[in-house]
Structure formats: C-alpha cells, structure tokens
C-alpha cells in the first residue's frame, strides 16, 4: 500500500506544470494547423494573379509577351524571332 503512495500523490506544482504543458502543446498544434489556411489562400491567390498577369502569344514571327500591371494596365512586349538573345527582363513586384 505504501509503495503506491508516490504514484497517486503528485505535488500540486508539478501537476499544474504538466497540465499547462499539455495545454500549451494543444494550442501550439492548433495554431500551426490554423496557419495552413491563410498560407494556402495567399499562395493560391498569388499563383492565380501571376497566371493571369503573364501571357505569351505568337504574331507573325514575333513572340508577344503581355503583362498586366497591378494597376490593371496592359503592357505588350514583342520579341522578334531573329533576335533570340534579347529576352525580356522580368521586373518582379510584391503585390500579394
């Protein structure tokens, strides 16, 4: 009977600490899982914006690069097929 005593009587401070640790772990796991939602939304939104913003078409031997600015303005850049080394330099912005 006396051997069981240490198992059943945990000091209140240690009990409080382990209970707090369990709660901290639970909240931390929930927080990491919750962060997936805004992360996915941000990533998908940025991906959609980029897909919509850049388009390449061919017109009479020219590659026409159509880009949309964040203000909605459309810019078209034509690269002649005879000048393959002149590739358009992309300027990246952080709009998302």
């Amino acid at each position, binding site marked *: 009977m006396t051997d069981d005593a240490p198992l059943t009587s945990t000091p209140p401070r240690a009990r409080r600490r382990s209970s*707090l640790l369990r*709660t*901290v772990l639970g909240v931390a796991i929930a927080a990491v899982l919750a962060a997936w939602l*805004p992360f996915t939304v941000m990533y998908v939104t940025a991906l959609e914006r980029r897909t919509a913003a*850049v388009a390449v078409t061919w017109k009479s031997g020219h590659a026409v690069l159509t880009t949309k600015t964040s203000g909605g303005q459309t810019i078209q850049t034509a690269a002649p097929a005879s000048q393959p080394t002149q590739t358009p330099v*992309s300027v990246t*912005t952080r709009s*998302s």
Partner: protein
Amino acid sequence: MTPADPTHQLFWFASRAFGTVAIVLLAVSVALGLAMSGRLIKRPGLPAKLRRFHEASTLVTLALIVVHGGLLLFDAFLRPGLAGIALPFAMSYRSLFTGIGIIGGWLAAILGLSFYVRRWIGAKTWRKLHRFTIVAYLLAVGHVVGAGTDGRSPWMLALLAGLTAPIVFAFTYRVLPAAARNRPRAGRGGAPARHPAPSARLVTQRS
C-alpha cells in the same frame, strides 16, 4: 511589371500566415484576461481552466511572433537582417508600421513573461504592468493594418473587427466601477441582485 513567382515567396507567405494566427491568439488571450479580471466569468471551476488557457495562449502567441519575424530572415525579397526584425524602425519596408509591430512584439514579450518574475517585482507592480497588455494589442492591430499586405482587405478588416469587439466590451466592463456593473435594474420590476456588490452592501449599512 509582373508579380513575383509564388514559389519564391514561401517564407513571405508563411510569415504572414503565422502573423495572422498570432494576432488571433493575442486577441483571444487579451479578451480572456480582461474577462477574468473584470469577473465576467463566474461559473465555478471555469476561471481556473481559463487562467491556464490564458497563460498557454500567451506563451504560444509569443512563440508565433518569433516565428513570424524569424521567417522573414529567409525571405529573399525583403532581406531584413536580424536588426530589421528586432529593432524598431530599422527595416526599410514600411518602416513606421513594421516598427510599431516590433515595439508591440517586445511589449507583449515583456508583459507576458513578467508573470514569471512577479515574485521579484511584486504582485502589485506586475498587476500595474499587466494593464498595458492592451497597448501591445493595439500596436499589433496598427502593424497589421499598416504593414500587412492584406491589412486593408475586407476579410482582414472583418477579422480585426470581430477580434476587437469582445476586447472593447470586456475592457469597458473592466473599467466600469463595480457599483455600476452590479446595479439592480430598477423600474423593470426585476428582483434585486442576490449577491450585491461589496460597495452596494456598504451603502446599505450606512443608510
């Protein structure tokens, strides 16, 4: 100008996502603290559980703030450096509002962790310090609106309004004098309060 490749912005998105969760958890922690100190929650046994959750959510919020800032170190576009994420107004990107966020983060850390040194600073000093936690929340809101890319988007403003409303309510209730909080509703035929506030009892004894 074209938007940057999203795959090159993973740390940027992750930082913002953790920042969003951090402000939610900070709001929950502040609202709970105000509700407990204002004695809004009276059900037996519940305050002890809520106190534990308040402490746990504060610790996790502080960890999320560290993760939010730390992930920016790996962002190839921003490159803030350690000084940029730790010192107010040192970052070139929206320096005023990032600075406000850094001050808010430090304030939250100092006020949150002061709980563990209250034996040395004294319970009275700690309680006085702890009242400024609402300032840390307000600075965080300012940081989200001013520095966050989604700060002025409808969903973020709706989220902030939803988080701030209970805090405003609990804060107003907390600062109201006890007599005003427990005043029985006269003129409606309602019975007087079963447990009048100490101040109300005092008035009864005097008259």
